[in-house]
């Protein structure tokens, strides 16, 4: 199953418009809800593209035009260069995975049969159907032996959602369309499903178009984010970091939220920020020497470490005796420890909790690697920050990210940031 | 067919015990009595079951039983009993033939639709409204009278309509036992061979007209009792996926809970 990027297709919207014949839309020139207005964007193969925006902004309509549940009024949608409108309808739909919010599992069929729906439509042999069902149930984290013969009414919401994803994946489609797939469960389950899905995507690498109204979900899940505004107009299309760091319009800035700075923090990790060296000493070292060296630290603190370089605590310069040795009772173990994969948001949060300016960065073994300061975080934040381009509407959709090269990688692995957080046990 | 027109044109058919008006009266009398008794029994029980939601399975089962018994059968089963009890209870045996069995059958068969409709009607009232009423301090009886009944009235009248049609139809067949009602025209005609044909058809037309007339009247009543906001939906009336009748098994389509016989 790994390395299946050849199974992913490129999806391109080419000046796609959808108009409805509502009287207000035509006469007053005001856009109708659900309409889409001259949408052009390209989703590269194997990437997750989030369509996000307020209700009535056309994101779901755009999604449904890919599998032609809604037909565009103008423009075309190209899948691997081929106009979807020219393909035979049921053949097209059977080649696209489709997950909706209410899931829509068939209550009269077993879970196994539900999952095998599209392969069965495609005429796969019976043995292969069963095999594939079980494979997929396992992939989404459900024990096939336990779930295969059950009926949807016997499953919980979260379990049903997983079956929905399995069903969409069954025929190994190159594209998946997901319409608020995790909307119908509670936040805890949703979080888990999101993380597992991102992990799954690492193996299957399909092209995914994902609709949500939740900007946090968009930032977390997307490789690329398309922000829509009412009237079906694309307000901005770019990486999550672009959207946060350089919103293309006031609408985007407002939609993303006042806290977009903090949101960016969750996309960056400790490894993105230069660490300060720590002035260290071990118990038994000369106090006088330590006291002299402590002056090198901007805050004039000494970090006491043990034989394995693990931190024991801080001693202020003024508290270090002029003579004798450093003892184990001197240090004050105040600062939180983080590692290089911790998100800046979590790190900052911990430091604020402890009411200190500095966090200690340690490696897997717990050994000190350096210091992370609030000041360094602030500097990093200011690096990517730009005033939004409010005036030029022509620049919509084409706003370029001016973020530095150091920020591209965390983007595409936005999900991995949360991956790390899981390993920390902080999620 | 002109035999029928002559039949209606003949003034003799409009006077006396065998005249149309009298037969109509007989028909209506026994029907009204049965409905009255049935309502007196079914309504209180239905209100209780509907309001408290206790014993609903009993209600549904009763409806099933009532639906299943053919009215013709229902009429004749008590016959031996009503006839033989005449000396014991002191009534005229003919009463035990031409009134009691039919009356018992009609009453018994009218109860299920009324009961089910009352229950379903009360159940269809939005629970939030009832809770609001309780919260405002209304007592149970007031909730029933001021909130539930008005909102349920349309469905309850629907059940009443079903029961009435049932009763009218049963009274028609009852004429085979009794000496009265519009059904008599049909049976008298059957007994007269070819000459009786106009009577048969006339009787059929009269009965059909009565049934349709009553149904239309009650339908109007039902519409008038529906809150204005729901009227359009009721007219178009296609039951939606989450319609007021969370369909159990046709028992809550009260209008279809009885047979036209």
């Amino acid at each position: 199953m790994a390395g299946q990027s050849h199974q992913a297709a490129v999806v391109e919207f080419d000046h796609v418009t959808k108009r409805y014949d509502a009287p207000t839309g035509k006469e007053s020139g005001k856009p109708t809800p659900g309409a889409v207005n001259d949408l052009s964007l390209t989703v590269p193969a194997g990437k997750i593209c989030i369509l996000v925006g307020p209700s009535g902004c056309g994101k779901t309509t755009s999604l449904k035009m890919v599998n032609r549940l809604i037909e565009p009024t103008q423009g075309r949608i190209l899948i691997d260069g081929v106009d979807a409108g020219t393909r035979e309808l049921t053949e097209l739909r059977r080649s696209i995975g489709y997950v909706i919010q209410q899931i829509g599992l068939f209550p009269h069929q077993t879970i196994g049969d539900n999952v095998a729906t599209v392969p069965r439509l495609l005429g796969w042999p019976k043995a292969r159907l069963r095999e594939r069902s079980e494979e997929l149930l396992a992939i989404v984290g459900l024990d096939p032996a336990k779930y295969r013969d059950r009926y949807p009414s016997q499953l919980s919401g979260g379990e049903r959602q997983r079956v929905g994803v399995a069903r969409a994946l069954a025929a190994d489609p190159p594209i998946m369309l997901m319409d608020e797939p995790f909307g119908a469960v509670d936040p805890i389950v949703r979080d888990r499903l999101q993380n597992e899905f991102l992990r799954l995507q690492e193996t299957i690498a399909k092209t995914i178009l994902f609709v949500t109204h939740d900007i946090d979900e968009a930032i977390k899940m997307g490789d690329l984010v398309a922000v829509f505004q009412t009237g079906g107009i694309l307000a901005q299309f770019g990486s999550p970091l672009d959207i946060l760091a350089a919103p293309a319009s006031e609408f985007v800035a407002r939609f993303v939220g006042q806290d977009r700075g903090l949101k960016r923090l969750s996309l960056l990790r400790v490894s993105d920020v230069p660490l300060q060296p720590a002035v260290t000493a071990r118990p038994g070292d000369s106090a006088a020497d330590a006291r002299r060296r402590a002056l090198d630290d901007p805050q004039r603190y000494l970090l006491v470490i043990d034989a394995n370089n693990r931190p024991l605590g801080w001693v202020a310069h003024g508290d270090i005796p002029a003579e004798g040795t450093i003892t184990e009772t001197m240090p004050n173990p105040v600062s939180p420890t983080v590692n290089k994969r911790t998100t800046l948001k979590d790190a900052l949060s911990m430091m604020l909790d402890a009411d200190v300016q500095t966090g200690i960065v340690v490696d897997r073994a717990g050994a000190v690697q350096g210091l992370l300061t609030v000041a360094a975080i602030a500097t990093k934040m200011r690096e990517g920050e730009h005033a939004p381009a409010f005036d030029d509407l022509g620049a919509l959709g084409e706003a370029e990210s001016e973020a530095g090269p150091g920020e591209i990688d965390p983007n595409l692995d936005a999900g991995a940031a949360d991956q790390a957080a899981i390993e920390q046990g902080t999620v | 067919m002109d035999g029928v027109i002559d039949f209606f044109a003949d003034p003799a058919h409009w006077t006396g015990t065998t005249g149309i008006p009298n037969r109509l009266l007989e028909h209506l009398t026994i029907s009204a009595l049965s409905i009255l008794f049935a309502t007196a029994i079914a309504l209180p029980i239905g209100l209780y079951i509907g309001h408290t939601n206790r014993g609903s399975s009993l209600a549904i089962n009763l409806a099933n039983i009532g639906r299943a018994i053919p009215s013709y059968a229902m009429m004749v089963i008590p016959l031996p009993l009503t006839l033989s009890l005449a000396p014991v209870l002191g009534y005229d045996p003919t009463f035990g033939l031409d009134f009691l069995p039919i009356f018992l059958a009609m009453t018994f068969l009218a109860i299920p639709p009324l009961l089910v409709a009352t229950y379903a009607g009360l159940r269809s009232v939005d629970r939030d409204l009832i809770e609001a009423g309780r919260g405002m301090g209304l007592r149970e009886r007031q909730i029933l009278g001021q909130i539930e009944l008005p909102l349920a009235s349309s469905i309850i009248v629907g059940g009443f309509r079903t029961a009435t049609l049932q009763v009218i139809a049963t009274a028609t067949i009852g004429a085979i036992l009794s000496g009265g009602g519009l059904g008599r025209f049909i049976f008298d005609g059957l007994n007269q061979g070819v000459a009786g044909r106009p009577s048969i058809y006339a009787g059929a037309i009269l009965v059909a007209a009565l049934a349709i007339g009553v149904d239309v009247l009650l339908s109007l009543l039902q519409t008038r009792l529906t809150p204005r906001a729901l009227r359009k939906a009721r007219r178009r009336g296609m039951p939606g996926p989450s319609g007021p009748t969370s369909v159990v098994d046709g028992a809550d389509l009260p209008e279809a809970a009885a047979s036209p016989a």
Partner: protein
Amino acid sequence: MPPGTKIFDPSWVFSHLPSIWERIVQHLQLTAVPLALGIVISLVLAIIAIRRPVTYGPVTAITGLLYTIPSLAAFALLRPIFGLSLLTAIIPLTTYTLLILFRNFTAGFNAVPAEILEAAEGMGYTRRQRLLRVELPLAVPLIIAGIRLASVTTIGLATVAAVLGDAFGGLGQLITEGIQGFFPTKYLLGAALSVLLAFAADVLFVRLERVITPWSRARAGAR
């Protein structure tokens, strides 16, 4: 009743078993044919009504009107047209099933949640496949409920047909002859059998529904 008439005479029953059986068979025929016809007609009408909701009102009104007419009147009215052939009985019996079946069939189809239909369409079911593999199975509970009600009703109405004449037979025949001959055994037997038949049909369809819809039995209990 002539004095000395027994209320129920088992010996009569045993000596007339073949003719009694004949009546039962006739009754079943009188029920099965209208029911089958009614199902086919109502199914077609229901599918039309789902596709074109505007037809729902008129169809309900017409079938409802026909339903209102007491059965004896209906049988009597058709007599001049069809005489005493089976048509006189079967046509009204069929129309009586239409209201019940049509309403239940449309309710059944409407009860299928919209999102399931959308999922089916989005996954690539053709219209026909959607109807046969998704809509129909999910509409089954209400469809069977309708057939159940219609069958029980028809059994009852078929008893009335015999009043018109002995050409139709059936259990109603037993009842009518019993009344006319002051013979309680006959009419009680006829009545009892028709009641039993109706109950049997009711139970049969309840069982049938349970068999056809295994998914409704598997409730959340089995987690």
